[in-house]
């Protein structure tokens, strides 16, 4: 199975407002690609363009050598001929058809003969565990079951590309967890390429093999989940991926307080002068600092235990920031503790990440 390539894809709804601008993206065969970003960033538009439901204003979308959309070449393949599967955010089950008929619909369109059609529909429904409700109607099912039927409807046609538009956002927390595992299993079993749209960074980190972060219609970074977490390309990605978000301290023209303290530490070891310094909450540690680590006295403002981890709000010099600890924290609000870190992210004035500084010195 070939790669999906988007090159120079742009989408405007008339005027100069672009929903997506000049997007270059290659989705490798068999990937579980997550399009991640805040609402209105163009991720759903991108997905719909891949599906063919919307047409780009410029650029080319292709699967391998097969051009699906190209304004430049004047080629367009309609959604019904692309052979992809798409699960909608609100599932979009057809209310006038039974569950079985919903799942069989795509096979019917492909003129699959009756017995095989029934067998494949049943198998798809068994795969998502709703084969017992086969002869009911969508309105008689719970939200989770409807979601599974939508998935089965897509799986029944065995598409090589599965597109999912925030399919888990209407589910409750328990079901969402279950479906994440389910989707990951389906991805592994079917070997299909999955493109998944979400605004939930945790969902992206847990499921995807590749994440594309988008903001305001532009691709911010394309990387494997942990690469993205460890080496965010810019401030937007750094703040969007991770919870609680990375604390970023602007240095400003006359850095004082926390900014001054961090900057002095960096300047002694690196050659660049960053415009901002970021620290991930779990990189901020308590206790006696190892040699060479940045450290500072901090006042504990609040401790928020969450069972397996402890989130602590600290005041360091003039700045509030969060730390996450995976060992019990026995400080009380008002206590003074020493906190230290060996890993910081350095950003230039444009917000691009220039380096990470850690115990091994300046790293890429």
């Amino acid at each position: 199975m070939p790669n999906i390539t988007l090159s120079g894809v742009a989408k405007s709804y008339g005027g100069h407002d672009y929903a997506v601008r000049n997007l270059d993206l290659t989705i490798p065969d068999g990937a579980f690609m997550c399009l991640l970003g805040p609402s209105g960033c163009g991720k759903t538009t991108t997905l719909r363009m891949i599906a063919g439901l919307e047409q780009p204003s410029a650029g080319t979308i292709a699967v391998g050598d097969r051009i699906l959309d190209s304004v430049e070449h004047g080629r367009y393949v309609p959604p019904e001929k692309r052979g992809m599967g798409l699960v909608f955010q609100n599932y979009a089950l057809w209310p006038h058809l039974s569950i079985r008929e919903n799942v069989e619909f795509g096979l019917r369109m492909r003129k699959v003969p009756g017995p095989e059609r029934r067998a494949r529909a049943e198998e798809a429904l068994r795969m998502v565990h709703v084969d017992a409700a086969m002869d009911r109607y969508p309105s008689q099912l719970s939200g989770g079951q409807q979601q599974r039927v939508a998935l089965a409807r897509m799986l029944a046609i065995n598409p090589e590309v599965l597109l999912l538009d925030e399919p888990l956002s209407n589910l409750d927390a328990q079901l969402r967890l279950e479906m994440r595992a389910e989707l990951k299993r389906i991805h592994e079993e079917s070997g299909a390429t999955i493109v998944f749209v979400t605004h939930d960074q945790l969902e992206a980190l847990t499921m995807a093999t590749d994440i594309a972060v988008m903001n305001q219609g532009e691709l911010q970074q394309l990387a494997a989940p942990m690469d993205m977490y460890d080496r965010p390309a810019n401030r937007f990605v750094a703040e969007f991926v991770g919870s609680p978000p990375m604390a970023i301290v602007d240095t400003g023209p006359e850095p004082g307080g926390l900014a001054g303290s961090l900057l002095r530490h960096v300047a002694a070891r690196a050659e660049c002068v960053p415009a901002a310094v970021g620290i991930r909450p779990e990189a901020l540690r308590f206790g006696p600092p190892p040699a060479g680590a940045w450290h500072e006295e901090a006042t504990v403002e609040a401790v928020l235990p969450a069972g397996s981890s402890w989130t602590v709000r600290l005041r360091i010099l003039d700045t509030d920031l969060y730390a996450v600890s995976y060992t019990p924290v026995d400080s009380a609000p008002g206590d003074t503790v020493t906190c230290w870190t060996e890993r910081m992210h350095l950003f230039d004035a444009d917000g691009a990440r220039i380096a990470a500084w850690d115990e091994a010195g300046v790293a890429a």
Partner: protein
Amino acid sequence: MAVLTKAEAPPPPPGRRRLLYRLQVLRHDPTAALGLILVVVLGYLVVAPLVAVLSDSARLQYGDEIHAGQRPGEWTGYYLWRVFRSQISGLLFWEPLLNTLVVAVGTTLFALIVGGGMAWLVTRTNVPGRKWLAGALVVPYMLPSWTFSLAWLTLFKNERAAGQVGILQSVGIRTPDWLAYGPLPIIVTLGLHYYPFVLLLVGNALRRIDVQLEDSARILGAPQRTVIRRIVVPLMLPALSSAVLLVIGRVLGTFGTPYVLGLPADYRVLSTGLFQSIRDRSTGVASVIAMVIVAIGILIVLADTRMMREHRRFVTVGGKGAMDRLSDLRRWRWPAFALGVVVFLVSVLVPVLTLLLSTVTRTPLDLSTFTLDYWLAERLPGAVGFPHGVFRGSELWAAAWNSLRIVGLASIICAVLGLLIGYVVVRGTAPRVAAFLRQVSFLPYLIPGIAFAAASLSLFAVARGPIPALYGTTFLLILVMAVTHLPYSSRSGIAAMTQLGREPEEAAQIAGASWWQRMSRIVFPIQKGALVTGIILPFVSGLKELSIVIMLTTTGTQLLTTLSIGLVDYGYTQLANAVVLVIALVSFTMTYLTQRLTNSSLASGLGG
């Protein structure tokens, strides 16, 4: 591994390629093409007639060359002069205009007093049998509006017009002309038809007012009278102004009642004047009058929307607090109930029984002359034009079949058009097309039916380009009837499609369904309910429609309503009454069943 490549912005693709791409997209998704087709169809059926009637009013017609001193087809102010400033303009226009205003104001007052009072009674008091009254008092609106005028004639007619005299006259009480014909009977009979309209609008508004608003005023020390004057009436103003304007608008375009009750006394209103002008083949004058009616109709609806906007800030929030607390009428409970029953008797039972009685007795009120001849006789002596009972011969059946066929087809066209308009609007690929469809499909709402029919005559009476003259064809009737009901069906079509959203269709598209398959297997099956309602509502309303069809029917295309009016013209009172009873029965039964089956509101979809 994923690869990220940064590229410069690509040069814009050449125009020809871009066009090729657009064409490819269009070929696979005909929504845009469908939208354009609908634009052309609506432009032709809604906008073109109005342009044609405007042009007819300003260009010299054949036959008027000598009077105007111009050649046919030239631009002229002759008709404007003739209607507004000439010696006969009083007869042609000013007098009918004045009469129309008198009738409109009178009818509105009548409907407001009866409808408003009854609305208060059934929504805010503990009158016995509220539920029954609330249902029963709406029945007059389910009957054709001129049912009442025929009943009136049956009661009060004197020998001034042809046909059998009324019941009063026949028992020896002379009925003066002012009681038998003219403004008084028109106002009373129209008022009886339209008061349910006020009752529904005002009743709904009363139900929505939060009783706590009144209680707060009372706690602050306001006496009951002040509460009504300072709190209730201002809150009711939007509903009241809406009711007033809509009743005036309806009265403006109503034809049957002023025709039956006004013409014998030469009492003309704009609608009958327009009809007369068209019958006299003075097209130019008719066009001017039609334009005036259109203008007044548009003004009324604009005024209504403006008032509604102004009053929007009055909309009371939180229906939750609107407790169903009722005023205790104490010893007036039963008198109030009696009053409600009297209104029901006068507006439903008396007219219907009068009509029924007149069709089963040879001499009014004399039960010894009981006969079913008017219904069933094979030969009726004395009635040359219709020499048998209504159920005999082919006339009634032919007219019923015509009504069924024409109104049925019109309703189906109307409902399908409405859904297609909704489809194009919701798909939203072309915002301008959507806006045009939304507005133009609503345009007929502004225009009284009779004026729209006149406008359609202007356009379709002669062959234009490839379209032959359609006057006298059932096709024209179907088209005009479908278009006049389009505002309701397009609104409900847009609502239904908006509620459905576009995902179900997109899901089918992804699953591999072509456009036809999507429409026939997904969109229309899901919208089955909306489609059925969209057919039934115009159908029920179209069955009793007279003002539109009276202009367009010929002897070849007689409908039930025009048959009944034709019998009135002949002076065959009993036969006319019998036919109108048939219409009333069908119309009432269908409305009742529709409401039962679809839970639809009567006020939302039925024209008068």
